[in-house]
């Protein structure tokens, strides 16, 4: 027998035996219990979700600032952002050193 004929016969025979549509006892109660459990507001999970949702915008802001600082640095050709930041952060320390001299 050809394989395609065997395949057709097999599938035709299988079609005659559809699977059972029996439902376990009170299955809908189980789903409703899950839904109700989900519905309860848990402050920790709420905070967790909000943090995860904020992660993408924060990442975008970080990338935008990085890009902006990179372009600004290349455009002006002046002191780098890193140098400027270092000067700003260590300004009080430099002032203290100058005072001691």
């Amino acid at each position, binding site marked *: *027998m050809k*394989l*395609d004929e*065997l*395949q057709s*016969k*097999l*599938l*035709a*025979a*299988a*079609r*005659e*035996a*559809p*699977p*059972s*549509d*029996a*439902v*376990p006892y009170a*299955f*809908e109660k*189980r*789903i*409703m219990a*899950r*839904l*109700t459990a*989900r*519905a*309860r*507001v848990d402050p920790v999970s*709420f905070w967790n*979700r*909000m943090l995860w949702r904020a992660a993408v915008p924060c990442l975008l802001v970080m990338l935008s600032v990085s890009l902006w600082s990179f372009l600004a640095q290349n455009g002006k050709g002046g002191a780098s952002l890193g140098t400027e930041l270092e000067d700003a952060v260590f300004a009080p320390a430099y002032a203290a050193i100058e005072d001691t001299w």
Partner: protein
Amino acid sequence: MPLNLALAVAGLRPKIDVNASGQTPSQPEAESSDAELIEAVRSGSVSSFEPLIRKYQPRVFATARRYARREGEVEDIVQEVFLKAFQKLHTFRGQAPFEHWLMRLTVRTCFDFLRAHRRRPEISFSDYSEPETDWLQQLASRDDPFPDDAAMAREVVQRVFEKLSPRSRLVLTLLELEDRTVKEVAELTGWSVSLVKVQAFRARAEMRKCLEQMLRRREL
């Protein structure tokens, strides 16, 4: 911001059923239509979802049993379908019957299940039972299938389908076992009509190859 709206933004639902007017809704009547029940669920009445589950769960169970063998897996699939349906109910536009929308969700969940379980070690042909291979050999040698062999045919088809790729299994189940049209399969799966046709062609070839290997091993 109202509590319902704030919780909806956060992806949560209120603990108690509160409808749009701020009142606790009454228990939905048994004869409520799907549209009424869906509207009630959307308004915040979680309990209105239960009649929908009761009504459609036999259909979802029957579909899930085509893709999973163990009863525990079937129950997990059905549960996931209804949890997804509840979460995504706001996307149901009501242009087609709710049953169609739910069956689309069911088929896609079953497909996800097949893909997720694809990494399991494959069943070798030596795992086929003797009666199954004997029966297939007899079927190949006779002109008509036996009148009372549908259950065995389903068992053998399940075994062969386990060897197929998830896409092939899905498309053959829908086209051949559920006897759906190409257009219906396209709507259920979200694939184009031409993709369904190509996939069906490949799936039939894949199945023939499996049958050939099975018969060859039987002869050895």
